[in-house]
């Protein structure tokens, strides 16, 4: 298999955004995933989110690990730099990249094998450091590229395509992210683009560690009866706690809601997350209560989706390290090298 670029032909009246980009400018190469793969829907949602947010495509860096999900950055944002790193280690590469240039938007794409097994450590530590990023796990509960082994997010008791039953309990990435201090946590479903696009937009405008667990059925190996990550199962058990709209700083709000129905959270760039509650009791700002709700729903076999947690005052790694506002990769000898007089002094103090 080699690379297939997409033809440049486009409809002359395609809608453009603020920068004059069309939807097509956010696309990448032709996907080589299986036809109908949930991951392709997530790629489409990322394309739409970036288009709607008027982001210059080259100001985004997309990084991934290894696996089906990690292949997808080739299939969106063709004008962005991409980095397909090693299995389970995308978070460290992304962290380093973020330190070098804080001005770009960092999109980390991973899967459940990549982040819940081999990369669980790096997943955890990147979140607890508060790296400003969008970390998406395309979660299908199965190893696709190696043909159908259970992953660490497979539910206990779920069945593989070959009929084997999973004996180990599942790692819940959302619960982990909440526990580890991610400041924006959401769960989406690749089969619900209307819900997913705003979740991604919200994660992008959030400054801090934003994590999205996106259930994304593997149609080749995990979409059969007995699977808990298939299209039918997820649709039947999906409990959305809210609906999100992301308003850019300049957008006027046109839709009116009843008082108390909508909550607004302003992000550092002035964007507003408008959360329409679907569940009375769910409070996205109360980390402890939210975790409690998630546990209860999980025990009842429900898959909770939506924005699950937003920290009103998020911190990020650069703030914690008190770094310069200018990107490190723009600094020169002038800003970095103390020069020979300082070295003379240093020598003198070591005699």
């Amino acid at each position, binding site marked *: *298999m*080699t*690379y297939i670029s997409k033809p440049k032909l486009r409809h002359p009246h395609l809608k453009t955004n603020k920068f004059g980009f069309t939807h097509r400018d956010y696309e990448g190469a032709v996907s080589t995933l299986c036809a109908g793969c949930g991951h392709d829907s997530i790629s489409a949602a990322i394309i739409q989110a970036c288009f709607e947010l008027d982001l210059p*495509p*080259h*100001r985004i*860096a997309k*990084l991934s690990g290894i696996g089906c999900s990690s292949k997808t*950055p*080739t299939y969106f944002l*063709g*004008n*962005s*730099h*991409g*980095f*397909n*790193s*090693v299995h389970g*280690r995308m*978070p*460290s*590469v*992304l*962290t*380093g*990249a*973020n*330190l*070098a*240039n804080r*001005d*770009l938007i960092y999109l980390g794409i991973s899967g459940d094998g990549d982040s819940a097994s081999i990369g669980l*450590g*790096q997943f*955890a*530590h990147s979140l607890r*450091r508060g790296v400003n990023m969008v970390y998406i796990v395309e979660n299908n509960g199965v190893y696709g590229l190696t043909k159908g082994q259970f992953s660490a997010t497979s539910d206990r008791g779920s069945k593989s395509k070959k009929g084997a039953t999973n004996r180990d309990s599942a790692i819940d990435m959302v619960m982990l992210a909440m526990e580890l201090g991610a400041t924006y946590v959401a769960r989406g479903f690749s089969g619900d683009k209307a819900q997913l696009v705003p979740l991604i937009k919200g994660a992008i405008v959030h400054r801090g560690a934003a994590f999205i667990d996106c259930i994304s059925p593997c149609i080749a190996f995990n979409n059969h009866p007995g699977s808990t990550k298939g299209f039918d199962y997820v649709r039947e058990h999906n409990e959305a706690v809210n609906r999100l709209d992301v308003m850019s700083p300049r957008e006027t709000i046109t839709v009116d809601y009843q008082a108390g129905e909508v909550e607004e959270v302003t992000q550092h760039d002035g964007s507003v997350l408008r959360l329409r509650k679907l569940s009375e009791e769910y409070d996205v700002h109360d980390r402890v209560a939210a975790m409690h709700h998630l546990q209860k729903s999980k025990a009842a076999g429900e898959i909770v989706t939506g924005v699950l947690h937003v920290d009103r005052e998020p911190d990020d790694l650069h703030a914690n*390290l*008190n*770094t*310069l*506002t200018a990107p*490190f*990769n723009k*600094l*020169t*000898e002038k*800003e*970095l*090298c*103390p*020069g*020979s007089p*300082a*070295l003379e002094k*240093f*020598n003198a103090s*070591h*005699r």
Partner: protein
Amino acid sequence: MSRPKINDFVIKFANVNGSGSASANQLFAKSILRMGVPVGPRNIFPSNIQGLPTWYEVRVSEAGYLGARGGVDLMVAMNPQTWDKDLLGIEPGGYLFYDSTKALPPSKFRDDVNIVGVPLTELCNREYSDPRQRQLFRNMVYVGALCALLAIDIAEMEKLIREQFSSKDSLIAPNIQALHMGHSYASEHFDCPIGLQVRRSDQVGERIFLDGNSAAALGCVYGGATVAAWYPITPSSSLAEAFERYCRNYRRDRDTGKNRYAVIQAEDELASIGMVIGASWNGARAFTCTSGPGISLMQEFIGLAYFAEIPAVIFDVQRGGPSTGMPTRTQQSDLLACAYASHGDTKHVLLFPEDPHECFEFAASAFDYAERLQTPVFVLSDLDIGMNDRLCEPLVWDDSRAYDRGKVVSHDELEAGAEFGRYLDVDGDGIAYRTYPGTHPSRGSFFTRGTSKDRYARYSEAGPDYRDNMQRLLRKFDTARSSLPKPVIREAPKATKLGVICYGSTSAAMTEALDALEADGLHLDHMRIRAFPFCDEVIDFISDHERVFIVEQNRDAQLRFLLVNECALDPAKLISVLHYDGTPITARYIIQEISQDVAALNAKPKKKVAP
């Protein structure tokens, strides 16, 4: 009594870890330096924080021999646990200095060693009531006594105490008092000075006294590193810690208070090198520092950096391996692990600093090499130079020196229509051009990956594309060959067919060994290798000699392996001299090994006689 040894002896302090002896011992070493006499100190310490034995050895050498010598002329035996072994280590006619508060039976001493007993505990108990003070000042009391015994100018010691405690004024007077207590006691009770004496000289000159890890850390500051990611491991941790300390001093914006650096203590070595690769990919200068086990953990990422061509600077402060091995002892045993790190066909640039001066220089230039060659660069120092203060040439920086950021295409060049292929060999040196992420809205972006690709960074599993890329990587390695630091060659005063090669921290012992062998009439040309891949000078040197000794601090002759493997040399003429017990190599050992080999060579073969 024989003639006194002046400015040429070894004194060793046997202490208990955690007893506060380190700073007193260091003051002692520095006082001799201040008298213009070179010293080479070494900490010999266990993997332990408190309680186990630790030693501090000071080689005093007017001739400037800073390598370990072997043998002890004066043992300061402050640790009852190691008494017997310490006593045995003293050269005949040497001295034993001990705390004579409690009488010891004659069986605890040796007849051929001079005994100097000072009742340290008794003196301190009389003077101090606080138990911690009794312990700490006891160290200063023995230093004071040694000043008298060895004729060290006590004024130099007082000055050093004032400098040391300049921020804690209240400690100056009591330390000086303790110093004098020891000095007076020794002056009154012994015929001072003894047969080992320090005499003022001018052999230190402008040289500085610094450890290699600090020097390397400062080199990273001067070399423009902004991102450091590391995981604690002896003997490299002090490098990262020193970097952070120097950055606080040199890299904090005066107006805004903001930092022009980031140091991350990562969750492990895998994350450390991952962060370095991410930062370097994005155009910052980044490094990690580790030791052997960390290098093993980084293997997969190192292969990615090699194949995807991302700069990375990796310091390996080597220790005794394999596995946890001897974590607080020194070796040069990671050459092969670094030279061929990772799976598949890989090879990497290695630099071998000999002392802190070169640790600084190579650290700074490692970033130039890494960015110029777009590949990982390893700086291989070791515990001996990394964690010990070493007298070395002052650090130098030419203010006109510009960082070599390598081949990077700018926004304007892309805008002007420059052709860009990430893996396109435009200049024929195997090095392609790269762009930083976010440079241009529609040109110059590419996908970085560990999978094979074509010259335009497009995913490809086509055989010819893969081969083309691997061949270019070899051309790049050839480019590295001639651009790295050249070997340093010292020719013998007389023409000789014998050569000797060493690298890294061995150089101190090597210089001493060469002088001694020369004085004995055995002449060898010497080459100190400073980088891998090897340049032509290295091959020429070996070709020009009939027999070449290769002196290494590992079991498996790793440099010799590299030479044979990479340069197609005749292995029969390469004779290994290997030292790998975890102690630093000595001139005595080198002299003995080389002399024996040469003697055997010169011995006439016996005639076969029929039975």
